[in-house]
């Protein structure tokens, strides 16, 4: 798959909103889960 340019890649053939909307939400969920886990681990160790 040769996109030609970075602009074409981000444009996703007109489906940028749907494709990137999916992957960015996944990224946000993973980042959020890791942040919550780090906070929980910190609290658990402090209170242990």
């Amino acid at each position, binding site marked *: 798959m040769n996109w030609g340019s970075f602009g074409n890649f981000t444009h996703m*053939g007109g489906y940028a909103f*749907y*494709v990137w909307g*999916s992957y960015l939400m*996944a990224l946000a969920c*993973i980042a959020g889960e890791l942040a919550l*886990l780090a906070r929980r681990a910190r609290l*658990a*160790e402090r209170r*242990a």
Partner: protein
Amino acid sequence: MATEGYRLDSETSGSWLLKLAAPQAFFPVAGRMIPWFAVLAVLFALPGLYLSFFVAPTDFQQGEAYRVIFLHVPAAWMSMFLYLVMAFWAALGLILNTRLSGMMASAVAPTGAMFTFLALWSGALWGKPTWGTWWVWDARLTSELILLFLYFGFIALTNAIDDPRRADRAGAVLAIVGVVNIPIIYFSVKWWNTLHQGASVSLTRAPSMATTMLVGMLLMSLAAWMYSIAVALWRVRSIILERERDAQWVRELRGVQ
């Protein structure tokens, strides 16, 4: 809560597996396993994403919109698989009365809920350009939504009960009853006339998609699997510390630090 209830004593049990079932024995082992699974998750995700976006060809019907598949299908698989894992630990805790089992079930639930949400979210964003609608109450979508509510129900129920062992037992009953939803999700596209398409990948016949697409999807699924193990182990370590904070071994751990 260390003094309460039945516990597997590492002094008297013969098997290493049973020794590992003691939270104080599993705590350091889980800690050592986390980096390995985290690294594996990245090692699967990087080529998975590369195949998904730079190797897999454009779909002749859906254009680039179909690239949601590399997130959607792994998320949906994990949402069902993690529920079975959660129910397995919950049932084991109910049968054997091991403390760690309930903790494992609780450690898996939020990640399962996250993947269920992602499957629904990416499905909506995929459905809009291909079906013309974000949502439809067909059997596949509705049963997947019920799965999300089952996860929420398990988390809410176990958090609402103060005594962790009682919370584990109540949660286990809910988790086990909810297992009936998994085959309903999986076979919904066969049993009912759904807008959602049938399975493109199955164990019994050749997959109906290009090899690069299939490999990309499998790599992303393996990444999601390894990620789930890493975060569940990380979460179970916190749960162990939270529940066992009065236990002698946790005090000794604190003394060492």
